[in-house]
């Protein structure tokens, strides 16, 4: 692709070949992807890449990066990235995590907040929502789960670009790899750790931005309050008429908040 803003690279970290997407210029920002894998390079990536070097690793087991046998839960995966950051002398780094990726970032922060400079969590899993349940990816097709992730497919043009139409065999396989690895990490309890709110109280002195859609069908908005209460000083930005993907459903506002918070 001509003038492509991003490239794919491989780095040897924590004993494995980690494949990652990178693009942009400036200080590094680590982006941790969701339970269905890296969705592709989106407009918000482009905008962030003007001032930041965006680094999006494919989590171990998510298709391109090989599975790491010892990683069997989110704590293990957080530990993997902690090692990776140390080995690459990247700490403290800014981090943005989406859904499952938000849980990983929050878990790392709870373990050692000093590895991050700032943290953005977009509708993270990890806590049991006080009202409602996290939508169960493991009894749905990936396509059905994706369709439920935005409030209105028509008003999220980037969603249609990425996920519209019939899936290709490669896409289907990538989703199945992602679902399988997500199941290894978070089969039961589903996508949360019972005592996580208490662990989050250890996130002290780390500027944290929570971003959530009020109509999120994947991780109910009620979970936002748990995060906000547990992480001291955390700021919550909640979008109305928005589902689980504010970065595509409310792209302009999302990018503005990101710029402001990371400035």
């Amino acid at each position, binding site marked *: 692709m001509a003038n492509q803003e991003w490239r794919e690279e491989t780095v040897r970290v924590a004993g494995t070949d980690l494949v990652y997407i990178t693009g942009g210029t400036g200080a590094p920002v680590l982006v941790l992807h969701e339970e269905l894998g890296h969705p592709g390079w989106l407009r918000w990536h482009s905008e962030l890449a003007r001032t930041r070097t965006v680094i999006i690793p494919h989590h171990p087991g998510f298709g391109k990066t090989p599975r790491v046998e010892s990683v069997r839960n989110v704590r293990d995966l957080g530990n993997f990235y902690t090692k990776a950051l140390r080995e690459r002398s990247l700490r403290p780094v800014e981090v943005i995590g989406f859904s499952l990726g938000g849980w990983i970032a929050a878990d790392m922060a709870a373990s050692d907040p000093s590895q991050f400079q700032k943290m953005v969590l977009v509708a993270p899993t990890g806590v049991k929502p006080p009202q409602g349940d996290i939508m169960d990816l*493991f009894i749905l097709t990936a396509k059905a789960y994706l369709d439920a992730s935005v409030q209105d497919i028509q008003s999220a043009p980037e969603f249609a670009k990425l996920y519209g139409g019939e899936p290709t*065999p490669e896409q289907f396989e990538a989703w*199945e790899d992602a679902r399988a690895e997500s*199941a290894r990490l978070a089969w039961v309890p589903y996508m949360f750790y019972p005592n996580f709110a208490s662990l989050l109280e250890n996130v002290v002195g780390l500027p944290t931005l929570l971003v959530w859609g009020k109509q999120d069908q994947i991780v109910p908005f009620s979970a936002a309050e748990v995060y906000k209460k547990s992480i001291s000083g955390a700021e919550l930005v909640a979008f109305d008429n928005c589902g689980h993907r504010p970065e595509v459903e409310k792209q302009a506002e999302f990018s503005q908040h990101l710029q402001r918070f990371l400035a």
Partner: protein
Amino acid sequence: MHIMSFSERAYIDVPEDLIIENGSSYFGIPNTNFDAKIGSRLMNEYLDERVYAEELGFDGVMLNEHHQTPFCGGSVMDVEAAILARITKRVKIVLLGNPLPVADPLRLAEELATIDMISGGRLVPGWVRGAGSESIANNTNPAFNRERFNEAHDFIIDAWTKPGPWRHEGKHYNYRYVNPWALPLQKPVPQMWIPGIISPETVIWSARHRYPYVALGTNLEPTVEMVNLYADVAAQEGYQAGPENFGYLQNVCVAETEEKARELAKGFVYGGGFGSFARAEWMFPPGYNSKEATKRLAKAMTDPRTGTEIIRFSQGKVDVEEIKRSIDKNYQDVLTSGLVIAGTPETVIKRIRVMLETLRPGIFGTWYHHGPMSFEDRKTCLRLLGTEVLPAMREIAKELGLPGPFEVKPGSRPLPASGKRDSVVGALKAA
């Protein structure tokens, strides 16, 4: 030849429209449609049918297990087996199979040993990974399904044979004290058989363990390939596979007239039949399939020709009448292909002969009932199978040289002196 009788012991009082409206799936139908009075009657009738099968001369009664679905009444198969262990005298009680990944293996080892003792050593345990939906019904991580299967299998063999007490710290199972005081009567362990729908990984695993492999109503051509694959692996393991290593489960319905048999056998496609066992998202939970199987599935699921077939009713509004027409058409196809055999004993014997000549199995299961069918009709079907079809099959088995696994020990045949294995199947022809 070992000839068995089998049915799913289905809860047959589910309206066909309900199955179709549920996305052509038995799994997921609300249990508000279950009436325990009907369930109670059916469970007792099904036990009586197994006793009757013994009286008629069958060598084995086969049971299976599925959870939280009207498709199969054997959600706690070991309980049925324990009852049969006491109320039958001669038949083998063949469990095809216990879903290892969703079980507590220590408890399972004790249950099965108890059944073996009560039955006087007539138990044939069998192991399965469990359909994908079992991972959901039992809340067991599908991504570790095969690992759990392997570890549970090895653990149970150890629990039966390794003097206790000992400790097990595995990857998926941890026991601080293993010392069961229920051990199988059959020494060192009972024969174990593996049923399946011809996944190559399981076929290879079975051949390596010298366990007979029983194909469950699969299409003839791929089943022949499976038999050949098994025999190849057997040769690598240093033995010649024979009929005692292979089994086949056949849908077969017998009645006094051709018309009646064909009408009753329609139960095999009731609501869509086996194809309606569960929807795609329940049959293929995350990580259940190997990487290779996922690649195959990715192609099939995204191909407009096959994909719509697999996920045909999963989404959107369901047109019940259209689906019923497609079920009717499919019924004609399965009768023609021989996946379902229906008729008078005379017709049925001819078609079974073709199956035996082609697949040369030493184990043959007759799956005699599915869908709505009265107790009387089920008993008539069993009676005709037992008194007319079964003796004919024994003659054919003798003529073709098809010993069962209790006549020739599976895995005991030496390879020919040339080191090259003998053929294990007959010529492929339509049943």
